[in-house]
């Protein structure tokens, strides 16, 4: 472990000792895994009959098309709207006019502090039911408001991260305020924001699962239909659902990391995690990666 702040580089005896620990814990982990598999087997959970539907084309199609595709659609639609929302309110929070600034701050803080599910239920029962726009758009609207206000904060941080001299130079050559924002600050802020936007896709994707409560389409909806049809297959269905979410999210994480390297360089990622806080700018140091 060279390069760790917690340990010195180990000498030969410590290296040997660590190897011993590694073997012992390795055996313990192996025993735990084997135990779990045996336990599941004794309960009959590994029987082919309980997994058959997941290799049947009809159900695979239902999972991928009615489940995964709908989930992705909901997530990406809401992220696109969230980016627009974020840019509008992020610029609003930077406005020179106090009422505009306060109004935007109020909106952003409000939607960040309220649970997405609460928002979703509210939107659905207020305007989604009956002749309303339905569960699909209720999920999209709730996710847009939440992710949009997170992105507003990210966007604001992105604008503030552009060196001050650039705006000054732009004013000096006679640009107006709008021009400085749209031609100088905004493009650079969006570039810095890109990885954060992709990370926010992971959050949106996970949150679409909440549509389950208001019977919106998507993976969890299909999952429920499947364990209703094949009773007693909750475990298998949950494992398949988790696998699909994890696979897509890992791809998104890889894309975000690549964009980070490509556009932002080795600089620390704009901290989306920190923006969950409602208080001051002081809290925006340190790093926890994505928000829950």
């Amino acid at each position, binding site marked *: *472990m060279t390069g*760790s*702040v*917690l*340990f*010195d580089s*180990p000498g030969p005896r410590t290296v040997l000792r*660590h190897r011993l620990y*590694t073997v012992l*814990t390795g055996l313990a*982990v192996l025993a735990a895994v084997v135990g779990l598999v045996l*336990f*599941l087997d004794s*309960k009959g*959970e590994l029987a082919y009959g309980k997994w058959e539907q997941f290799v049947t084309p009809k159900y695979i199609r239902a999972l991928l098309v009615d489940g995964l595709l709908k989930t992705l659609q909901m997530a990406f639609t809401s992220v696109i709207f969230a980016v627009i929302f974020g840019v509008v309110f992020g610029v609003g929070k930077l406005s020179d006019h106090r009422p505009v600034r306060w109004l935007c701050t109020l909106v952003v803080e*409000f939607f960040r*502090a*309220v*649970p*997405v*599910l*609460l928002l979703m*239920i*509210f939107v659905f*029962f*207020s305007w989604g039911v009956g002749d309303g726009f339905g569960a699909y758009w209720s999920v999209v609207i709730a996710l847009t408001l939440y992710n949009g206000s997170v992105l507003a904060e990210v966007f604001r941080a992105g604008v503030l991260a552009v060196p001050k001299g650039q705006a000054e130079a732009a004013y000096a050559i006679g640009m107006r305020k709008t021009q400085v924002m749209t031609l100088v600050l905004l493009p650079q802020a969006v570039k810095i924001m890109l990885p954060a936007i992709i990370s926010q896709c*992971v959050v949106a*994707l*996970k*949150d679409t*699962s*909440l549509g*389950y*409560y208001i019977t919106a389409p998507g993976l*969890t909806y299909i999952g429920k239909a499947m364990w209703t049809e094949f009773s007693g297959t*909750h*475990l298998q*269905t*949950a494992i398949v*659902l*988790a696998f699909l979410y*994890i696979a897509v*999210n890992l791809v998104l994480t890889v894309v975000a990391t690549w964009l980070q390297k490509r556009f932002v360089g080795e600089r620390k990622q704009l901290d989306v*995690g*920190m*923006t*969950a*806080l*409602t*208080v*001051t700018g*002081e*809290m*925006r*140091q*340190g*790093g*926890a990666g994505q*928000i*829950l």
Partner: protein
Amino acid sequence: MDDVFSHFDLVLKAFWLTIQLAVLSGLTAMVLGTALAAMRVGPIAVLRGVASTYVTLVRNTPLLVICIFVFFAAPNLGVLTGTPFLVKGVVAVGLYTAAFVAEALRSGVNAVDLGQAEAARAVGMTFGQNMRHVVLPQAFRASVPPLASTLIAMTKNTSVVAVFGLMEATARMRYFVNRNADDTIAIFIVFAIGYIILVELISLAAVGLERRWKAAR
């Protein structure tokens, strides 16, 4: 609107359940998350692998799916069958949040500069002294902001157990909304304010701690 205020005890009861869920899940997540973080920064490669696998898998799974494991799949296997719903909720939210707590704590350790540990060794501190006086105090302080945002997100996440039959604040809002279809906005604002108060309390505590513990850098 009158319905909410004439039954305000139900609102308070629902938030009391939310607070219980948040406190118990928070404690579970802190214990488990600290263990995971220790495994991830420790010298044993297998444990590092186990902890980072856990963090990667759990972080990328929706809380709702984890709840399906805890509330539906586990009882099918004869695990957690007679357990109260509150405990199941705590297990689900705790297991989920632990992954994020582990990341927050690890980021704290990473925030300490390697040069400081080297300097501590250079002036003759033992490993224990180095940990006690140099590394860990700074790591804890640096973890406060990310930990606070993790706990805030967790408090909001307790709402997910509403889906699984716990009458906490979010489920209670749905109950009121069902009964008073004309007043949804007012009811929503009442419950939103409840959550905002909880969130603000956590962030105020965090800001206070951060001020008190501010490390000179």
